[in-house]
């Protein structure tokens, strides 16, 4: 019940402070993001936030990835692959211009790829371009890329944000003033607050339906919720406050879309360190952890538990989540068999994301419960990259691997969790050699099962993509096959 004073105050305050914003014409979008991009050049930085602003909206590559994760034509309207798989002939769209008026043709492709592999290149995914031997331009609208060796994922890779086309005249300034060929052009960046884009009238393809898009950076979950409720934001495609979902779901103004991501959240173990070199210990840890409780506590139960390094979003996914059901007694017994004394001290290094910090507390309690003495060590990203990732100086850590279909990391000789399995490596080599999806499928299943069996890391859950947006808004991606907020076909309707 409102008191008189409240009512009076409310009217005074609303008059003074809440002068209602001008009713927005329904062709603009204000989209919330948790993290701000450090720069706006997807070819010079690893942060996914860069792609979440620029991918497909400002910058385009020869190919593009769609909402389902499939490769689609981008600036190249079609292509032919030579039978030996070494020559790609891309047919480029005609009449494509950059936002500054520069023309797009094959010379830009040559420039973009050469720039990515140059010695002074700071492209975070330089490896993608490693197979390229050279790029030729038989005519301005044809680009012929010759590879050194076969690369099954080449078309997919050229659809990444790191492989977008940049203009020789403006590439140097893309970090702060990105100029691409996309349907939106850059307007302004208010650091710490937002990036504004507007529809590019000279776009070569289907024009965007929205006239302007504003990406707003709101890291704090409570503030994000408040901004949505207040209508300051139209959408939050990766909503950071799962705890408020019941409230938002009950509110007919909003669409709540739970989608999938490639974020495999794992309790990574240092397999080169005792006692984690013993598979019984690793399995014991898997039995000791209640994945469903984690999902319930962190994501209101929306994060699907996983049992291997694959997510339900991936093709050929096998549900292995129940291989090690929650069973503390079994865990204790396995630990005993492996000779791990009760009270053995282990440390979990926790990087900053909330999923890691919160899982850490729960997992620590569960591992204490089976007799380990756990200490938690929260560290910054810088330290995580340096100590855990680069120098493998850790016992356990909690981390989400967000790269798509990255089963290869378990086949590497040196990777931070130090999994060494000749069996897995040979299986993976067979997979690489398999040329058809039909041939790949049993191998992919085998790889997943092998990982679940060896449990090099404890596989926890797949990060859900929680999208919350105005119920009248259509065309936003529900799933997250790659980091992007592709708003090119977003529109307002009823």
């Amino acid at each position, binding site marked *: 019940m409102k008191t008189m004073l409240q009512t009076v105050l409310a009217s005074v305050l609303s008059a003074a402070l809440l002068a209602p914003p001008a009713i927005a014409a329904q062709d603009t979008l204000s989209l919330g993001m948790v993290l701000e991009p450090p720069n706006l050049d997807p070819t010079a930085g690893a942060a996914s936030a860069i792609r979440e602003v620029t991918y497909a909206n400002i910058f385009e590559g020869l190919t593009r990835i769609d909402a389902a994760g499939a490769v689609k034509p981008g600036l190249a309207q079609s292509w032919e692959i030579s039978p030996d798989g070494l020559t790609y002939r891309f047919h480029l769209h005609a009449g494509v211009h950059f936002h500054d008026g520069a023309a797009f043709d094959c010379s830009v492709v040559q420039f973009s790829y050469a720039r990515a592999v140059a010695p002074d290149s700071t492209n975070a995914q330089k490896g993608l371009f490693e197979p390229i031997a050279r790029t030729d331009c038989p005519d301005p609208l044809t680009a012929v890329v010759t590879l050194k060796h076969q690369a099954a994922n080449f078309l997919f890779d050229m659809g990444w944000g790191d492989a977008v086309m940049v203009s020789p005249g403006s590439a140097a300034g893309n970090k*702060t003033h990105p100029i691409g060929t996309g349907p939106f052009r850059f307007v302004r960046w208010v*650091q*710490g607050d937002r990036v504004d884009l507007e529809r590019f009238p000279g776009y070569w393809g289907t024009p965007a339906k929205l006239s302007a898009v504003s990406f707003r950076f709101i*890291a704090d979950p409570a*503030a994000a919720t*408040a901004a949505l409720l207040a209508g300051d934001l139209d959408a939050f495609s990766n909503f950071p406050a799962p705890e408020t979902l019941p409230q938002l779901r009950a509110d007919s103004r909003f669409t709540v879309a739970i989608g999938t991501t490639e974020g495999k959240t794992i309790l990574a173990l240092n397999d080169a360190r005792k006692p984690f070199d013993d598979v019984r210990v690793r399995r014991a840890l898997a039995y000791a952890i209640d994945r469903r409780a984690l999902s319930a506590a962190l994501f209101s139960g929306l994060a699907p538990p996983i049992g291997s390094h694959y997510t339900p979003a991936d093709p050929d996914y096998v549900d292995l989540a129940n291989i090690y059901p929650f069973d503390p007694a079994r865990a204790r017994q396995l630990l005993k068999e492996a000779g791990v004394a009760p009270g053995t001290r282990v440390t979990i290094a926790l990087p900053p994301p909330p999923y890691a910090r919160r899982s850490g507390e729960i997992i620590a309690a569960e591992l204490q419960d089976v007799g380990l003495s756990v200490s938690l060590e929260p560290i910054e*990203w*810088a330290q995580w990259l*340096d100590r855990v990732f*680069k120098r493998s100086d850790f016992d356990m850590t909690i981390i989400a691997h967000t790269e798509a279909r990255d089963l290869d990391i378990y086949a590497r000789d040196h990777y931070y969790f130090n999994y060494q399995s000749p069996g897995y490596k040979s299986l993976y080599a067979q997979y690489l050699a398999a040329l058809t999806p039909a041939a790949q499928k049993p191998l992919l299943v085998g790889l997943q099962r092998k990982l679940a069996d060896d449990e090099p890391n404890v596989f926890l859950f797949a990060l859900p993509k929680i999208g919350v947006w105005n119920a009248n808004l259509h065309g936003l991606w529900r799933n997250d096959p790659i980091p992007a907020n592709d708003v090119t076909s977003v529109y307002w309707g009823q």
Partner: protein
Amino acid sequence: MARFLAGRCAILLATLLAASVLVFLVLQVLPGDPASIMLGTSARPDTLAAMHHQLGLDRPLWQRYPLWIAALLRGDFGVSYTYSVPVADLLRARIAISLPLALLAMALSVALAIPLGVFAAARRGHLSDTLVMGVAQLGVSVPNFWLGLLLVLLFSVKLGWLPAGGFAGPRSLLLPAVALALPQAAILARVTRSSVLETLGEDFVRTARAKGLSRAAALWRHAVPNALIPVITIMGLQFSFLLAGTIIIENVFNLPGLGRLIFQAIAQRDLIVVQDLVVLLAGSVIVVNFLVDLAYAALDPRLARA
């Protein structure tokens, strides 16, 4: 006076220099590589090296410090590693939020504390004095970030009058400024009260009354101006707390100010931004205290002869 000023300025500069060396050295031994944060886990060694070169991190320490300081003295704050924009631009945008916030908080706390403190002193021993001081005692004890949360709870969640966070125009500064100001006002009110009580006991106040000034006139014309001199010192000291408070409050309210910038810059090892910011913050504390000394000298003629 000129000699006094020159001496104080020299000390000021020396302190700033010492602060800059300290910050620079600490940051150099900080584990973590800015380049690997920017380029992520897939980056190859040659890419990292290229990034190091681009950032100037391949130069030795003894070259980087003088380069940094010389540039600072020219007013060039350098270019942010992560944002790739001039640090000066970043700072300008962030100061545009933090400074009004700090000033608003300071103004609110002064506007609240001085009248209340004087009032309590004038009504010493009365119920109203006890009441005001009791509330002040509570105010001193409440952490400002909790107060911030409570304000959000009341004004944003329950009443929906004001934004819970983020910067959506000046009204976004209102709650954080109140959260910062109230505990500060409580301290200031207590100091004001005891200072006024002390001066009310002074002979010159009695002299003023003997001249026929009413109690209120003697209070405001003679006791309060004298009492405010020590209060100004406290306000100067509070500035340091206010800065620290601003850093936390900006996190509570998700305001893109200097406080968030410094957390972010440290996390991303944007060393140049951290260096500039720390020197800026430490410098502003030093400068404010210097200004307080000057104000003291200006307000108290007894000190002016120094």
